[in-house]
């Protein structure tokens, strides 16, 4: 266990370093993109004069490394600066939207992860049966079109035609949890459909891959029920790839859902990033990217720790 804690500590430390590298990369990526904040904000009303005035006001005329270091100095003490466009604190601009994104991701994940793992176990158990085929065809079909298209179809059938759910997941301040779950059901369902196939198929593959192993054969010859063989004997050794795919999809739920946000008019962090990139509003872009980076780092770490925990050989290396 001590070794594991050391690993987590080491990885968290490296995580900070990774964040630093990411922040440098993002800063210079935004710098390298053609056009800058002044041009983007002023749009077609940009004249040489107004652009120059705006650059001077926002300090964009100073060299890039200086600006980066200034930002870094602020970030080091927890001050991520103000949006260059609106002048709002970055934390204020991001706070509510980040919360929205996390809530929707949690909602979708709480449905998708158990469903796909249970489905994965079932199709591994009933492999090559009609159920296996149908479940696979349905989930594969659902990921074969862009997620916003899936959203349109769900809206058409579950909202416009039947009126069961609202088409727009608009938020009000005084919503109860039940209200929230009802109003955001369609976006959550869309996300569930998008991520289920991947996790389910990986569960299936990882389990089937082990079924011919001698120890499984042994269990089966001993007359253990097929379901028990899978859950007790195969699954524990199949966790590593499953956990990794789950982590990948959880990360997607947080970082990749801008189109779902747009389709359901859900104010999440994805749209904020898209707008900020369009305006080259560096502090916001940077903050969003760092949140995404932290998501990946933490989820990847969790997946690695999970892989180690589920494999005694990794837990107690020789």
């Amino acid at each position, binding site marked *: 266990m001590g070794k594991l804690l050391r690993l987590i500590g080491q990885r968290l430390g490296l995580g900070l370093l990774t964040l630093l590298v990411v922040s440098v990369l993002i800063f210079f990526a935004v710098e390298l*993109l*053609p*056009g800058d904040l*002044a*041009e*983007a*904000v*002023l*749009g*077609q*009303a*940009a*004249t040489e*004069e*107004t652009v120059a*005035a*705006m650059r*001077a*006001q926002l300090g964009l005329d100073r060299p890039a490394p200086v600006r980066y270091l200034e930002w870094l100095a602020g970030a080091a003490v927890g001050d991520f600066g103000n*949006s260059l*466009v*609106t*002048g709002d604190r970055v934390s204020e*601009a991001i706070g509510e*939207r980040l919360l929205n994104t996390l809530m929707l991701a949690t909602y979708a994940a709480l449905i998708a992860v158990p469903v796909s793992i249970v489905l994965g176990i079932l199709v591994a158990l009933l492999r090559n049966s009609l159920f296996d085929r149908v479940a696979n065809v349905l989930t594969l079909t659902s990921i074969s079109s862009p997620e*916003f298209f899936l959203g*349109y179809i769900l*809206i058409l059938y579950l*909202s*416009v035609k039947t*009126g069961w759910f*609202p*088409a*727009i997941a*608009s938020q009000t301040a005084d919503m109860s949890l039940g209200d929230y779950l009802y109003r955001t059901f369609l976006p959550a369902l869309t996300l569930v459909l998008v991520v289920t196939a991947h996790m389910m198929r990986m569960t299936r593959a990882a389990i089937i891959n082990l079924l011919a192993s001698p120890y499984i054969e042994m269990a089966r010859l001993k007359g253990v029920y097929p379901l028990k063989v899978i859950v007790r004997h195969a699954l524990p050794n199949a966790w590593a790839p499953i956990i990794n795919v789950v982590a990948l999809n959880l990360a997607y739920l947080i970082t990749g859902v801008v189109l779902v946000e*747009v*389709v*359901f*008019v859900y*104010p999440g962090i994805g*749209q*904020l990033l*898209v*707008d*900020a*990139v*369009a*305006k080259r*509003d560096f502090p916001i872009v940077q903050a969003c990217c760092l949140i995404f980076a932290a998501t990946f780092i933490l989820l990847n770490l969790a997946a690695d720790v999970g892989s180690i925990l589920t494999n005694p050989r990794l837990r107690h290396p020789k």
Partner: protein
Amino acid sequence: MKSNPVKSNSLSRRAFLGTTAAGVAVAGLAPGALRAQHKRGGTFRIARGHGQTTDTLNPGTFDNQFMNGLVYAYGGFLTAVAADGSVIPDLAESWEASADAKVWRFKMRPGITFHSGRPVTPEDVVTSINFHRGDDSTSAAKPLLEAIEDISVDGNTVVFTLSAGNADFAFIGSDYHLPILPSKDGTMDWQSGDGAGPYRIVEFKPGVSATVERFENDWNSNRGFFDRIECLAVLDANARITSLVSGDVHAIDKLEPKTVGLMARNASINIHSVAGNQHYTFAMSTNKDPYTDRNIRLALKHAVNREEIVEKILFGYGYVGNDHPIGRGQQFFNSDLAQTPYDPDKAKFYLKQAGVDKLSVELSAADAAYPGAVDAAVLFQNSAKAAGIDLQVNRAPNDGYWSDVWMKEPFSAVYWSGRPVEDSMLTLAYSSGAEWNDTFWDNARFNELLVAARAEIDLDKRRAMYWEMQEILNQDGGVIIPMFANFIFATGPGVVVSDKFASNWDLDGERWWERWSFA
């Protein structure tokens, strides 16, 4: 999803002279639309196709229709544009100009207050206008106010002194960048969201929604019929449509032409299509080869199938253009000018004149230029093939289209929302050296006529000049204007709209806030 930096936004609003000429407003398609008496009350919800998380209440930064509309609700302006396109009083109750149109005196309406209860003073006007001027101004309205030399207060009157006469100066007071806001510490206080418009802001969430309530002490009791308005930023066209169909909102804008026909099947929805002067163009840089050669330009103009483009990009919600920016409804539209047809043989003839057999050019387009720009370019490519022109379509990213592609690439798709007044449109985009002369066109005769026509009082002579200018553009200009597009928006049941829509902006000239009501 990208903001569409609408070009007409900022520059001269001198446009709205000649009121009768202001584009024909067709309330077509919706004979069932209510035209009853206006009734007060109710909460009106509207879903708009614009609005970004980077929006602020700083009027100098307004660059999309969400803010354009919102400011007309909460802000008071010196002047306003009526539905028929004429300029009418708003916070200024009257105005007069000196004989040379260099000195303008605006007399303020007495007894008007901001929403906070503070009276609106002439000093507020001075700080509000000065906010956009000066060397360190970053306002989009700065070029608009360049001619102002001095602003002073004379009792209850604000006096503007211009460096050169401008007969249409009163129109500038209605520009949506120029609301009169309260001043604080000698500068304009836009942060508070206070204003002197018919509605006051209750809540503003950038890129999400804006909620306003009727201002009880509005000076004009004949406008602003809703108690409360919720304006939502819904960027996805499908989401707008479903929210209207399901009764979630009462009105939506920016309908996609290709789905309008399908939407019209729903009898409870009124679809409004308003013809204005908004046009979509392909601009050739006449200072870059091969577009320096007039014959090449003419060949390309004859290689585009305009009818097909209007049919397939606008689905009929618009009309064919003739390579000049003057709309059919305008006063000086040249009705005798022959329409340039789609004629591959003629295009080949012009290529031969230019001394080439085969022409290969690249056309840059992105849907940021206008919805359907890439498809329009593909249609152009297809029709040009018959004329032996190899036109490559380059799909540019929406991101940064206006800063990196427009006026940088020699041949690109462009959106112009048009001006109801000929002079301003022609000056803006076709006079030599103009900031937005995106074809880099310089025609001596045209420039000469432009200046002369501006000063000409005799209507017939003036018409003759504008007609000639259109002909020169048609024959020599670097712009291909295949189509003029309508504004298309829709309202749900129970909404009373105007008898005649304004055509200067989308959604009834963005004055729906004060002109519409529930039945």
